[in-house]
């Protein structure tokens, strides 16, 4: 997905004079030709994330649409106030593309983890959150939305799905059933489909969380049971279902990254296994919930 970002962003910088790219000393090698070709619009700004976001806001004030890129915790947690105030409050448009997701930098430890990014940014009014499941989904989402005039966050992941969902839809009904509805976000769809392959339930896939509530107009929560599975701290999907929940009595189970420091190292998959994100473990959790 990182390589796709490099390709897609480069295409945009080359073809659009009012785009600009700011790197926080990350991804520099991949963009090396672009940085030489467009020194005033494609810049390795350095390891100063708060100022990087502020500089991006300055470009945005001047009519550019910036693309800002660094590792997720440094972008979202270190420079949160700058994203919130310089972009959100000032209603400036900009794109923030993070790498690292929850624990893709597993071997480097917690300083490079960011399972909180989606839930933190969810609290900035007006933000668009994109959690693509594949490189192709990222390309489609980014090309379609980078210049939408809004505040956009794209979460690159090492983990990806085998199938891309590229039709323009906020929700994709991937599997139909009767006993429950599972909503799954982003690049963990494959393991959820494996977990639920023999279960009689709906699986709905989403890769976008907008500022508004999720429109369940055409969807019924089967069996009045809803399972929400997210590859970060839980909460953002539920936050966007509050009106539906107020009007419908349903039982809800949220599965996500637990809110604790994950102090092991290893690989991304090691963490998923340890946290119960295997098809077997997910199957058991869902079955227990349905039977409860």
């Amino acid at each position, binding site marked *: 997905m990182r390589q796709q970002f490099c390709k897609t962003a480069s295409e945009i910088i080359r073809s659009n004079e009012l785009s*600009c790219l700011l790197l926080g000393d990350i991804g520099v090698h991949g963009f090396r030709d672009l940085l030489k070709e467009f020194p005033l619009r494609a810049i390795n700004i350095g390891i100063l994330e708060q100022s990087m976001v*502020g*500089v991006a806001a*300055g470009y945005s004030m001047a*009519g550019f649409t910036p693309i800002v890129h660094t590792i997720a915790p440094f972008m979202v947690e270190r420079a949160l*106030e700058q994203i919130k105030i310089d972009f959100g409050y000032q209603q400036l448009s900009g794109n923030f593309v993070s790498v690292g997701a929850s624990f893709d930098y597993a071997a480097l430890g917690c300083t490079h983890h960011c399972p909180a990014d989606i839930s933190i940014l969810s609290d900035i009014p007006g933000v668009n959150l994109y959690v693509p499941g594949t490189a192709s989904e990222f390309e489609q989402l980014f090309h379609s939305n980078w210049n939408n005039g809004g505040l956009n966050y794209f979460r690159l992941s090492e983990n990806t799905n085998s199938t891309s969902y590229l039709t323009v839809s906020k929700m994709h009904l991937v599997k139909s059933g009767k006993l429950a509805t599972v909503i799954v976000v982003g690049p963990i769809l494959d393991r959820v489909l494996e977990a639920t392959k023999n279960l009689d339930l709906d699986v709905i896939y989403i890769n976008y969380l907008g500022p508004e509530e999720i429109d369940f107009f055409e969807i019924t929560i089967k069996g009045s049971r809803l399972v929400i599975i997210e590859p970060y701290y839980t909460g953002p999907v539920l936050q966007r279902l509050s009106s539906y929940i107020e009007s419908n009595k349903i039982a809800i189970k949220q599965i996500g990254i637990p809110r604790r420091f994950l102090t092991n190292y290893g690989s991304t998959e090691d963490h998923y296994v340890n946290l119960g994100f295997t098809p077997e473990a997910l199957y058991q959790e869902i079955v227990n919930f349905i039977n409860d």
Partner: protein
Amino acid sequence: MSQMYDKCMQHFQNLQSELNKLRIDILRAAMNSKEGHIPSAFSILDILYCIFIDTEGKKNSKDRNFKFILSKGHASLALYAVLARANYINETWITGFGQFNSLFGGHPDRTKVQGVLASTGSLGHGLPMGVGLAMAQRALGVGDKVFVLIGDGELNEGSNWESFMIANHHMLGNLTVIIDYNLSSHRAVRQENLSEKLTSFGFSTSSINGHDHNEIFFALFEKNDNFPKAVIANTIKGNGLSDMENNPAWHHAIPSNEQYLAFMKELQK
């Protein structure tokens, strides 16, 4: 010779009268809303006047294109007063300031007020944005100067020093950082030897009397070279009212009715 002296004195008296009118507007707005950082506004009034109003006392003309960010947003009273004088906004700001549905808050909002480029208030945000603006001007091939006014207390924020590094690295000759050096930093982390520090960061640095309009005009508009500029404007917090000058008790205080009347008398002399 005495004709020239009389002309200078007349110009000076006219200017002080102009500035006192702006101070009166600021006091009225603060009294009406019971809100505002009056001394911070007074310390930058001369600087803002020189940026937005030219030497003939008129709104700064279009051939002197500039972008301005007030990074120390709590001094908004001064910005509104000068923007009104320069006809960006009208005088309804005085009665509206700080009111619930007003466009004019204690910190300026770029989505509400013409002439306000950045919604500042959280210190340390304005200069990075100004650096980005300066870089963007260059990318656009446009020659606008970018002025960012920061406070010396605000210099405690690390993002300013990150911005100095960026500005130096990218040789932003179109950027001028004005430091309102009113000694606010002295109660926290003192910002001393600023001239040497900023020169070491690659800035073309000058130190001026922040209430002398000739010095302000020269530092902001006449000095041109390829380096980013830092103007250390030595100012008096609360300048213009004897009881307020350098009196920390007034930082975020609003006068009582008696004090207000005394202040108005002093300004109307």
